[in-house]
């Protein structure tokens, strides 16, 4: 039975030149878990907003065609009425929490539907249990971490058991562990409650394994609609940027069919006798040195502590050094102390004990690049020469708010780098949130160029694929101090969560992190396995 149907939907936002959706027709059956794929600006979010009724009721604009959700035509039923059947979760959890406590937040959508008090209380308890947030029920929402907020926002969207739930990049702010947990939680809700799940995400390797179907968007149109394997075959020829690392590994090694997840990939390799017993060495060799006193370090943390007044401990004697021109990825779960360490490096926070030594200025790009942009035109934010060097010269008359996500980040980076000599160290905090693969590739290239100019680059990231693409070394943080520190290939080969998909597929064989290296390992094995004629 169809739960969501779009018929020839074309939509243009107010004042936009081009339509965000073009003649989109789509039908989703009840109980499906559908992943919406596509590059930034391809129309994924607009498709979800059309299904929730926000397009056109909330955003306005020009709308043609019709969308029917659970038997309700969105032309006649606004988002408020559709909310009885549709739960929605957007990217930024901070803007999605409207009440003071978690309990009130979960009760709010149920009360809006007029449920009796007892049913509301039961609904709150059930959804809290389902999402494992029972302990948070009486916590103020203002005190929750990003990961907790996202989980609460998801619970609020599921409260009252909607028949379909729409999620727009729900894992973008979560660490790999929390991101994987969220996807499998959605799969469980889908299987146990029969809830239809529509999930838009850039990290396809994280969610394809759980998907029944993939809808790929390109330029506001549906470019592909089919099971994960069909999508991956289409992506290989039509949109390689949407291929998962596993699929790229298989394509480069000349293997078929493209795998939708690690389990499937390993099964195929095993069937072909290509999955060796080789495993990464245990990470004991990566144990961080207690104290590094490298001479000439661009940035050195010397037993840095950060203890919050009346609160917990963010850093516990964290010690390591970064050499000039070195590219280091700082990884670890949410709350491990990554952001605090970067803030201490740039002098935004002062360590309560220990010292940070820098060989010069430390530039810091925080999580929201938009926070740096306060002028009315791009040209007023940075000198013309710096804008030209960043490839933003032609945009100098534009308003910063009109820039794309990638352009905004480049502009913010240009601002913090400043004129004159490059800084001794450049720190970036979660720079790839909400970025597609192409933009991540551009950023990795830019960081390599900055390192070549002599600056140490230290990037806090949750994205192992991005870390593998730019970093020479990974420092893994846990509970306020480095718990592993070593070359990227060593650290990201030995884990389950802090590992690239290629490393997980190959079990760390050959220290291969990226699909290209992994394909080389597989090809070598194929050569060995095939007997000479």
């Amino acid at each position: 039975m169809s739960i969501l149907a779009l018929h020839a939907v074309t939509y243009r936002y107010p004042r936009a030149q081009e339509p965000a959706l073009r003649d989109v027709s789509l039908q989703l059956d009840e109980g499906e878990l559908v992943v919406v794929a596509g590059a930034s600006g391809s129309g994924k979010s607009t498709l979800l907003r059309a299904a929730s009724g926000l397009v056109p009721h909330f955003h306005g604009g020009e709308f043609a065609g019709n969308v029917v959700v659970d038997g309700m035509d969105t032309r006649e039923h606004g988002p408020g009425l559709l909310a009885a059947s549709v739960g929605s979760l957007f990217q930024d959890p901070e803007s999605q929490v409207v009440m003071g406590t978690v309990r009130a937040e979960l009760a709010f959508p149920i009360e809006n539907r007029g449920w009796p008090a007892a049913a509301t209380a039961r609904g709150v308890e059930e959804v809290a249990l389902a999402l494992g947030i029972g302990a948070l029920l009486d916590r103020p929402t203002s005190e929750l971490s990003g990961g907790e907020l996202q989980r609460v926002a998801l619970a609020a969207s599921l409260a009252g058991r909607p028949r379909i739930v729409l999620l727009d990049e729900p894992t973008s702010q979560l660490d790999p562990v929390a991101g994987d947990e969220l996807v499998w939680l959605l799969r469980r809700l889908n299987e146990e409650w029969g809830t239809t799940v529509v999930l838009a995400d850039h990290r396809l390797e994280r969610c394809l394994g759980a998907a029944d179907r993939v809808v790929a968007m390109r330029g506001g149109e549906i470019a592909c609609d089919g099971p994960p394997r069909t999508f991956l075959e289409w992506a290989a020829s039509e949109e390689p940027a949407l291929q998962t690392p596993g699929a790229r590994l298989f394509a480069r090694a000349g293997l078929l069919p493209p795998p939708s997840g690690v389990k499937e990939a390993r099964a195929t390799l095993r069937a072909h006798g290509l999955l060796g017993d080789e495993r990464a060495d245990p990470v004991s060799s990566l144990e961080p040195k207690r104290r590094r006193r490298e001479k000439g370090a661009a940035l050195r943390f010397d037993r840095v502590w950060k203890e919050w007044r009346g609160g917990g401990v963010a850093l516990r004697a964290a010690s390591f050094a970064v050499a000039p021109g070195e590219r280091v990825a700082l990884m670890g779960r949410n709350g491990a102390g990554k952001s605090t360490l970067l803030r201490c490096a740039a002098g935004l926070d002062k360590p309560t004990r220990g010292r940070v030594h820098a060989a010069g200025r430390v530039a810091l790009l925080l999580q929201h690049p938009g926070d740096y942009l306060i002028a009315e035109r791009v040209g007023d934010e940075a000198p013309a020469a710096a804008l030209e060097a960043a490839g933003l010269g032609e945009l100098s008359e534009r308003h910063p708010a009109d820039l794309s996500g990638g352009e905004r980040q480049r502009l913010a980076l240009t601002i913090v780098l400043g004129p004159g000599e490059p800084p001794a160290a450049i720190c970036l905090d979660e720079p790839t949130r909400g970025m597609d693969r192409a933009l991540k590739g551009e950023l990795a290239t830019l960081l390599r160029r900055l390192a070549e100019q002599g600056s140490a680059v230290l990037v806090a990231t949750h994205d192992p694929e991005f870390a593998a693409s730019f970093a020479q070394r990974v420092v893994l943080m846990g509970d306020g101090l480095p718990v592993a520190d070593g070359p990227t290939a060593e650290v990201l080969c030995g884990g389950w969560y802090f590992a690239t998909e290629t490393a997980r597929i190959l079990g760390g064989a050959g220290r291969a992190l990226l699909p290209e290296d992994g394909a080389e390992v597989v090809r070598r094995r194929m050569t060995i396995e095939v007997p000479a004629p």
Partner: protein
Amino acid sequence: MTYRRRPSPLHAARAAVGGAYCLALGAVALSTEHPLVLAAALAAVVGSALLAGLGLELARLARFAIPFALVVALINPLVTREGLTVIVRGPDLPWPGPLDITLEATAYGGVLGLRALVVFLTFGLYALAVDPDEVLRIFRRISFRSALTATIATRMVPVLARDARRLADAQRCRPGAQVPRLAVVRAVATGALDRAVDVAATLEVRGYGAARRPPRGRRPWSRHDLAFAASAAALVAIAVATPLGGLAPFAPYPRLETAAGVGEWSLAGAILVCALLPFSDRRGIVR
């Protein structure tokens, strides 16, 4: 300055009762001009805050409240032409006349400042100790949209404060001269609009647009509900009886006349006892 659940008898009381208690404290301050009684009301508010674990927050609030009260206290002697005891003789200006400052106007300015301070801190206590979500639930039965708008507006305050802190941090990361504070304020104000649009979209998808009247919840009255309700009733009785019964008289003009006898001291004591007694029972204060 936002609500956070704490282990205190006032936080354990239901929002309707907590709100009524704070209103009753404010009513006491508004019902009298006697300095001793006002001082007792101030002591009651400060004592309540301390016993509710809100001393630090109230002290932070006092940094704004005390200058405000001082301004109120200073304006009265400058603009009032009443009172017989001149303490400072000012110039004789053509339009406003002689700018003499009298003891009576100065004393009455002090009373008005003290009253403003009590009212200011009482509202602070309300904001810190009464759950806004519960208040919203109460008022939604009467006027859903107005209540929600008011509550969301208050909820935006901490969100915007966080945005402002983030923006200020980002500006500190700029090399060279610091960005003027005004530019940061303007950026926060611009961002507030985006935030409001995002929150409005969330409200829509949570069913706010089609909201029905929420159901009446049944919750048994706890010992703290009863204690603070009784305290609020007693304080309201004092607030009503004081002017009606001519208790604690205070006449600033033409010559300052006030009494500080047994009646006034008893009234001040009664206010303190009524306001602080409910805090003596600390059973069942952790949710």
